């Protein structure tokens, strides 16, 4: 699946990258990202996930061709 990250997450990951491992849910992906880069753990725990342009919960099932966007906590304004 294709992963796209924003803002502070770019300090830990490429802006866009592919994950080939089979992951069942958003919770699995959250853990996988922490495994890839443990120093991102605190930030990853605070992130929201978007699949096909909808905000999803940790229980949301993932498909291998999903485009997942990872959103750090907002800091606009």
């Amino acid at each position, binding site marked *: 699946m294709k992963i796209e990250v*924003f803002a502070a997450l770019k300090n830990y990951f490429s802006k866009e990258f592919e994950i080939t491992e089979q992951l069942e849910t958003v919770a699995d992906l959250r853990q996988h990202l922490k495994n890839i880069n443990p120093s991102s753990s605190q930030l990853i725990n*605070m992130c*929201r996930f978007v699949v096909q342009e909808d905000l999803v919960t940790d229980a949301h099932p993932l498909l291998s061709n999903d485009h997942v966007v990872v*959103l*750090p*906590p*907002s*800091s606009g*304004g």
Partner: protein
Amino acid sequence: MIYITEEQLDLPGLLAASHHPGAGAVVLFSGEVRDNNVGKKVDYIEYESYAPMASKMMNQIMEDARQRWDLQIAVAQHRIGKVKISESAVVVITASAHRSEAYASNRYIIDRIKHEVPIWKCEYFADGTSVWGGNCNCHTETGDLNKHIYESENG
């Protein structure tokens, strides 16, 4: 309505378009770049957004505000890219028959934009350092990444 733009925000133009015969109160909030933060001199701020979702969410926030208050005008725009000191990064304009609705709805809109909309600031300091900052951390108190604590609900 354009919610996210790389252009400089046209505050006088937006205000000029926000007069309405049924509105006795017009409130304009401009969130501007300050020259200091956490004791450090700030050179400028760069904003980034996940634009499709940011626009959709801002549209929903405006809809929600119109449901809660009787508003003649409700406008919001957030600038992305490099924003210099004293320039406006975000503007919210509300107009209603009386000032209480205009003030309350304006604060409601800016609170929700700051907490919920996928927009992020990176502060560039005079000492050459930079930091992605000011993150919403409401979930540490609410226990839910989608539940926020708004200033407007706490006086």
